[in-house]
């Protein structure tokens, strides 16, 4: 069950407009900090003309060296592709491109722009600050999945833990993970340092969890003499083949069926490397 927060208690009382509250609260929060606020990879600052947004790596860079935008809806184009031109299915990935500045006139423009850069980030930030953000744990989320995603219901607790370490930590997603495996099983991955809360496993995570569940299933029956699964061998071969050419080209961010996917490799670091080097402590994916 989703917890019922005050704005959902409804009834005949006048409706509390959480989204409008969040818009105003965010603008006020930005306004309180003359040097600007950091949100994801963006620095937001109030100016005499309105609000200015830019990549944190571009603070102090003059306009002549940036593409200057004036329409808050242009934030969608800014957020769409990485600097290398790759599609960004997850807006909280730490791969927002640099080289732009976006100036908007008012609080509404700021809300529109922020919702393209970090969709629903502002309203979740606001609810979290007020202790009102509804959290949906993994098992609740999995319980409502259907079709090709129904199998994520069978993912083990250990599988959820490793999937969260591989898929959600700051190296690959800047949201602060707030959900647990279930109400009695805390999630063990690092929640992250950022301002944007993550109240529920996202669609990328569910897709990754599905892939990890497939790995779990093969583990039981398909291990070879040294304990490697077919997909582990597939990944190792793909890695060796790629490295032998002198450059490892990664699969797309959410292409989890491909061996050379970063999150898939992070999962292998947690689960395969300890098998290959049994004498060493398992390293976290962020090390090295």
């Amino acid at each position, binding site marked *: 069950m989703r917890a019922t927060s005050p704005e959902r208690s409804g009834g005949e009382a006048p*409706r*509390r407009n959480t989204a409008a509250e969040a818009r105003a609260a965010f603008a006020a929060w930005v306004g309180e900090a003359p040097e600007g606020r950091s949100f994801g990879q963006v620095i937001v600052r109030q100016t005499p003309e309105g609000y200015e947004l830019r990549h944190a790596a571009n603070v102090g860079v003059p306009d002549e060296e940036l593409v200057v935008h004036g329409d808050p809806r242009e934030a969608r184009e800014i957020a769409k592709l990485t600097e290398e031109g790759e599609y960004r*299915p997850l807006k909280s990935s730490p791969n927002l491109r640099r080289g732009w500045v976006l100036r908007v006139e008012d609080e509404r423009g700021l809300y529109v722009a922020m919702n393209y850069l970090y*969709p629903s980030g502002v309203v979740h930030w606001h609810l979290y600050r007020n202790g009102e953000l509804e959290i949906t744990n993994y098992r609740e989320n999995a319980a409502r999945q259907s*079709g090709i995603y129904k199998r994520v219901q069978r993912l083990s607790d250990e599988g959820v833990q490793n999937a969260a370490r591989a898929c959600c930590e700051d190296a690959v997603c800047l949201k602060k993970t707030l959900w647990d495996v279930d109400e009695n099983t805390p999630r063990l991955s690092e929640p992250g340092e950022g301002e944007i809360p993550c109240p529920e496993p*996202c669609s990328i995570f569910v897709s990754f969890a599905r892939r990890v569940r497939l790995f779990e299933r093969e583990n039981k029956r398909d291990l070879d003499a040294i304990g490697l699964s077919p997909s582990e061998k597939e990944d190792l071969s793909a890695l060796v083949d790629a490295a032998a050419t002198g450059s490892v080209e990664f699969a797309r961010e959410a292409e989890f069926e491909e061996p050379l996917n970063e999150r898939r490799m992070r999962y292998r670091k947690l689960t395969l490397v300890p098998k290959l080097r049994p004498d060493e402590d398992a390293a976290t994916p962020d090390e090295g």
Partner: protein
Amino acid sequence: MKALIIVGHGSHLNEDSSLPVYEHAALVRDHYTGEFDEVVECFWKEEPSMRHVLDMVESENITVVPAFISEGYFTQQVIPRELGLDGPVTHRDGRTIRYAGPLGTFEGMPDVILERADDLLKGKGTRPGRTALVLLGHGTDLNKNSGGVVYLNAERIRERGVYDLVEVGFLDQDPPIAEVVEGVEAENVVLIPVFIAEGWHTRETIPEDLGLTGEVTERADKTIFYGAPVGTHPSVADLIVSRARETEGREAELARDVS
């Protein structure tokens, strides 16, 4: 305040899937100024998710239009579940959320398909003889509604008598599109994918399977004109607004039914 939420499937892998939803939303903002205070996009596989879009919206009067072709798994199961809808009209937290049907079954859809075909043929020479319109659906053996919507539109267009022939073919169910295109007795074949967005099928598998060389492919016996998916046509924005308007009478209807 009034909001329109357009729901798209979206993709983890490419930007094509959500593009029509963004484009139609932009057209609605421009062409229907004042009708909606907010026009918001949301997706199954992209952000904002259906799960969280209602958190972002300020309006109390909300209409949800699925940018999907057919009635089926997504429109009947996934979208209502993720948005927490009770049915055609949901009252929650002082809000009214109306849920419209998919675009493909709407009576305005044949007009968009015909516009797409006209746009395709504009400025291009046709051979003397008959011209057939062939509607291409994805289809699936798992759900008869998926193909049904393509037959529905073919029938509605056939009734208008604009084309000598109106045929239907599919990727994943019978009749296979290649056989339909080969077998159709017309000198000109206008092939329109009844899809929402460009993607792997429209860009790669379809042209490859049918041996198409672009918008116009000359064969010995016929010329094949291959159009963009109907869902990317700008008129779909009008269709979305019509779908949204249509839901407004529902509460009155429901009230009448009860009394």
